[in-house]
């Protein structure tokens, strides 16, 4: 069945796109957001297992110092990668809250999406095998309904049973 889109829906879609586009060009970045963003990509190394900006231990030997180092790096104008690398060199790779996107760390990021793709492929194969299964044979003289007639009966059944 061909889907026809009414002009009203078309216009609604176009309006929504326009609104999104207008707001897209209004955005600006800020330093505070960078501090929050990078601070949430680093771990506190005091063994609390918390993200740097969420470590709340009074007297923590590390978090205040690390936050100061982060602020200083941003003040110097270091970019995000350089800032994170300087933390890795000083505190080791576990200071980064997520695996890197290079080397073996890349595997961590790829695997979930690979699993999704493999699952989709598996699903397609299952659906194909289901669809290729022969329809059960009917008794002599009975013709299975097809096309619009079948649709009409289905709609009638839906109407009469869908409470």
């Amino acid at each position: 069945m061909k889907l026809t889109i009414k002009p009203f829906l078309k216009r609604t879609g176009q309006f929504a796109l326009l609104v999104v586009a207008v707001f897209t060009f209004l955005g600006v970045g800020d330093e505070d957001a960078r501090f929050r963003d990078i601070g949430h990509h680093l771990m506190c190394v005091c063994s609390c297992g918390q993200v740097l900006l969420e470590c709340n231990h009074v007297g923590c030997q590390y978090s205040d110092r690390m936050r100061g180092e982060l602020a200083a790096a941003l003040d110097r104008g270091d970019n995000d990668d350089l800032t994170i690398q300087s933390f890795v060199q000083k505190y080791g790779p576990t200071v980064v809250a997520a695996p890197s996107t290079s080397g073996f760390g890349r595997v961590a990021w790829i695997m979930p999406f690979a699993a999704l793709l493999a699952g989709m492929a598996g699903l397609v194969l299952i659906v194909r095998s289901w669809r290729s299964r022969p329809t059960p044979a009917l008794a002599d003289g009975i013709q299975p309904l097809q096309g619009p007639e079948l649709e009409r009966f289905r709609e009638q059944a839906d109407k009469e049973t869908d409470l």
Partner: protein
Amino acid sequence: MSQFSSIALPQIGSFALLLALALGAYSFLVGTFALILGGKESDYLSETARRAGIATFAAVFLASVVLVTAAFTDNFSVAYIFHHSNKDLPGPYKFAVLWSGQEGSLLFWSLLLATYGFVLRLRYKTDPRLFAYASVVIAAVQVFFLLLLNFAAHPFAVLAEGNIPADGSGLNPLLQYPEMVIHPPMLYLGYVGFTVPFAFALGALIMRYPGEKWIHITRRWTMVTWGFLTIGIFLGAHWAYSVLGWGGYWGWDPVENASLMPWLTGTAFLHSVMMQEKRGMLKTWNMWLVFFTFWLAILGTFLTRSGIISSVHAFAQSSIGMWFGWFLIISFATFAGFYAQNYKSLRSEHKLESMISRESSFLFNNLLFVVACFTVLWGTWFPKISELVQGNKVTVGAPFYNNVAVPVALFLLLLTAVGPLLAWRRTSLESLRRNFMWPAVGGLAVGVLMMILGVRPWKDIAYFYSLMAATLAALVIFTVISEFVRGGQVIARHTGFSLFGSMLHLYHRNTRRYGGYIVHFGVAVVIIGILGTPFNRDAEKEMGFGDKINIGPYTLVCQSYTQDDNANYSNEWAIINVFKGNQQLTTMYPERREYKASSQPQTIPRIYPTFKEDLFLVNDLYVVYEGRNQDTGRPIIKAHLNPMVPWIWTGLIIMIFGTITCLVPNAAPIRATVPARVQTAPAVGAGD
């Protein structure tokens, strides 16, 4: 405490555990033998196995009562009580000692499993043979836990005479919180409960059980178990939020992940099982799904108790990890073996007729749930894998899950909205368009409104996710409402009832379907609560009398500090007035305690949800008294402003209400007063 009870209690407890093991082993071995033997002559044996299973419950219950009694009577000759209790521990927490440590929590697990087994064995007349199989499977799992309790993690181990201390080390301060009295039981009821549908599934597989009766039998068990696990997870999140003092509720810690994994596969099972019930499809998939749900619950326990994955929550490393490892291997091999033997009995009875159908939406929904589960499992294990492969550990924290799991969750939310609009077998595009248009317009309107209110999705990926989540959550809510209204209109047309009355009737008539919609509604509300996270703000300050912190539209003014002392802990708290503009909203009392028995400090944050001031765009004002600056001696106060968080807990209540609704039997349909299709010529002389 008398000398007698000091010696007798651990002896009674140990004896009860040994007796439970003997009874459990009898139930398993003789039950298995009776099933192999088959025929009428094995009925007697099968009955003795069933009764032994019931008696196992009595013995495990006795052991649990003894341990709790030892806690209440301060019996520090029992090493477990010494390590997890003290004399001045309040009563409810002494009860919670049962699940506060390794040995006690295993005993508690065993008790819950025995309780589930007890109920199952009492209801055996529903289908004696299937129940006999399920009873044997439960007995096997029970024997594993009883072996652990008797030989690897004995809760009644006693301290050497002469070394018995006058007082205990006390309960971990983090656990001394009211929710800790109910969170672990709920979580464990969920974990352990999945053993029941698994036991029935395995029984049905071995028997080559025809039809879907086992699914009908286990439906309520699965729903109840899923409900407990959901409550357990959310209570854990609420506990973390209310106690840990970092202003968040979910940290993607391995222990949290361990609870999420069986929940994800369990939720997938709740959906896919409907395909088996209605269409005789996905039989193999459902078998594996229910097995993995059970298996992941055990895997979670393995993770937290083996020390293999480091976590701030994890129990101390111990030798029981090896036991769990072997149990996982044996249970997998057993299930795979029976599957290989009987898989031919699991052929689908129907084929998929259309990709635009309820069946296909369930297929995708299951795929996404399983991928989400895999992502969590993968993220939890990756530090270990990285260590094995390249020799150094990496951290897999929130940024990983936010970037990988959130997109999957958004797709799931989309399916939650679309799925209920699709009919079984096939749906015409026209009917989908007709039903989907108004919810879609409503969802888009919410998205546009959020952008107008200042959410800029291009500034940060987190804002983009928030916008998408809000739009899709709104779509789910509008879909649920439209489903109620559409169904209500049909009934109103047929019966002459009001729309509201018709919707209520509709709800009573198909509690499972509409209860499910209410759960979906609750999920959408939870998502609305979560999407505020990128907009969290916080401020920290050393505060003297009269000092202020401004956070968002609120001003916190320090009025005073005060101290107190009781037998369990000494504490100090701040008195902080909260203003919005010139209006005082409330006074908050963030507290810091020093527990005497363990000499450990603990912060008790105070939380003020602003429902009264901002009904929909509600904030949590979250204030922590962090302690005193060691250099200046001045108290430090940290304030968080967490938008929308109260909706998370509201969503949970809605989800639980929906789950309970699903468990209520359907009301009988009412007859239409004017059948719609019988409006032919009026009968002569009728009416007017």
